[in-house]
């Protein structure tokens, strides 16, 4: 009898799994997807927002464009009563940092406490915003100049090391600097116990990768960053048929695993090879564009309009490959 009841309860729990996996944000535009038990992805507020929860508070990777910050804060408060402690920006893109000021103010920093009473930390400052020095540089401006963002949106803790580590909510968190990929200030963030890797705009399942050449991005740096992520991510082997392995949150689009990452990395590498071959054959950028070097992938990742078109992607590859070629000669 007890076994039957147990089995019945197991069935009920199993049946309820999808509901657990998709907590309701209360807003049709903002979707909350559970990644692992203490980890969520918020989609629809600009770039994807990664949310790690636990007894120490909330760690966010990216905060969206800022247009829906109120709804983002409300959605996070539905997930946990704990305050936002850290915001990590993977780059300086508005889609990722636009909500910095609002979400930081909604949180409480560990490190900007004004005093520590008998109860422990009395954290009163806004949540810490962590990013590379390059992100701070792009968001701020020298004294007397107009900055692109108000100062309360700037990173409060910046770094230029290869990696920044912390341990929050009983897990190690690595912000890994990846030079010259999408831009010169990218980090990917690896949550070691949750086994979730947050890729930022190095990975965008809705588009070809956005390589901001004017901000230090290169095609080789992009491929190197994707290869680094492929190395970090572990697939479900040897029991391939079981669901599992490292999950990856892209800058935009759906949750991925290592196989999806490999598919994307191979796509970018193949297109790089095709453009490089065309350059070697003496073709101009105009001729290369006309030859459609993204054929085979354009329908899935390309765009003819918007802020990142197929033409811009091909031009970015061309520009960084020809710069490399010139510097080699």
């Amino acid at each position, binding site marked *: 009898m007890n076994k039957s009841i147990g089995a019945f309860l197991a069935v009920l729990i199993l049946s309820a799994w999808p509901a657990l996996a998709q907590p309701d944000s209360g807003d049709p535009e903002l979707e909350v997807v559970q990644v692992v038990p203490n980890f969520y992805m918020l989609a629809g507020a600009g770039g994807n927002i990664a949310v790690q929860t636990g007894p120490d508070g909330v760690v966010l990777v990216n905060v969206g464009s800022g247009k829906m910050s109120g709804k983002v804060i409300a959605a996070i408060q539905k997930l946990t009563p704990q305050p936002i402690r850290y915001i990590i920006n993977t780059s300086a893109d508005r889609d990722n940092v636009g909500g910095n000021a609002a979400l930081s103010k909604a949180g409480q920093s560990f490190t900007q406490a004004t005093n520590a009473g008998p109860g422990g930390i009395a954290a009163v400052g806004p949540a810490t915003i962590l990013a590379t020095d390059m992100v701070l540089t792009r968001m701020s401006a020298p004294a007397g100049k107009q900055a692109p963002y108000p100062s309360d949106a700037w990173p409060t803790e910046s770094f230029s090391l290869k990696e920044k580590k912390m341990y929050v909510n009983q897990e190690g968190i690595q912000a890994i600097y990846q030079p010259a990929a999408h831009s010169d200030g990218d980090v990917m963030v690896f949550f070691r116990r949750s086994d979730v890797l947050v890729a930022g705009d190095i990975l965008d399942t809705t588009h070809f990768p956005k390589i901001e050449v004017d901000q230090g991005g290169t095609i080789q740096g992009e491929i190197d960053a994707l290869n680094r992520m492929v190395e970090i991510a572990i697939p479900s082997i*040897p029991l391939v048929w079981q669901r599992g392995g490292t999950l990856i949150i892209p800058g935009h689009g759906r949750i991925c695993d290592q196989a999806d990452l490999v598919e994307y990395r191979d796509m970018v590498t193949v297109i790089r090879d095709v453009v490089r071959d065309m350059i070697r054959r003496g073709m101009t950028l105009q001729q290369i564009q006309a030859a459609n070097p993204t054929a085979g992938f354009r329908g*899935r990742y390309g765009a003819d309009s918007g802020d990142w078109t197929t033409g811009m992607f091909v031009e970015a590859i061309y520009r960084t490959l020809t710069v490399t070629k010139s510097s080699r000669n």
Partner: protein
Amino acid sequence: MQPKELSKAVSALVLTLVLTLLIGSALTQAALAQTMDLAGQWAPRAHQDYQDRGGGPDPVDYTAIPLNAEARARALSYTASIISMPERQCLYYPPFYVVLGPQGFKIWADFDPVTGTVLAWKVGAAIDRAVITVWMDGRPHPSKYAPHTLDGFTTGVWEGDVLTTYTTHMKAGYFRRNGVPSSDEATMTAHFMRHGNSLTISVHLEDPIYLTEPYVISRTNQLDPAANLPPTPAPCMPEPEVPRLAGGGVVPHFLPGKNPFVDEMTKRYHIPEETVMGGAETMYPEYRKKLKDNYVAPDKCVRYCCGWGGGSGGNLGCIVRGQ
């Protein structure tokens, strides 16, 4: 409690119990009555597309697939060397490989232990395909932001004696083993039709990225209780067998216009290159009329003339000239 009240309470309790039993029994009977039993081991019958499913297709043979120009471009860049990459060695084909591949499969049901209702049908794995779970409990498909998996996400309903399933959230893969791509936006509608000891699966594949119209494939398997088919695939551990393919520096592919196999079908079978490149038109019987006046059969059959197994296992007549 007064005796009268106690009596009322007992009566109410008994009534509730009886109703619960009756409703439960009715539900159980309904659940059991609504399904054809698909459970069993279903062995393949290799008489359908035996070359594709067994020995494998020619490297550039896209005939009878409604692929578009994007798919064709990608297929022409494909080389099987890509499978040697450690990251790809253990990847499976998408769930529709159940009708593309050569293997049989085991089918079983997971039951609700109380009502006896089938919660899910399981279509067992092949060595390079995951177990397909067909959810029968009405659950919704996941968010568009949810991961795509090797088994996809499948729901099913009974339409008379036919189990109709719908699969989304598949990974990118291949419609044919020579590199004709399927995207992660592909979906599969399948009909499982049992007739005695035969099981026919008719699959309708749609892919907004790579197909111009649905790609429809049907396969029939035979009940074989002695097949000893495993429910799950074998474990897999990749090994870097080709040093230059380890580490992600090299992705094997053919550059545009450099596929060396592009005219192989034309040379070997005299099939025009335009036909070899496939497309929706090549799926239909009418297409033969377009070819017949210009087609000249080769002087002799040079490959698979008696089936890919050499004709030893069946009643396939060997191809003599022009057949």
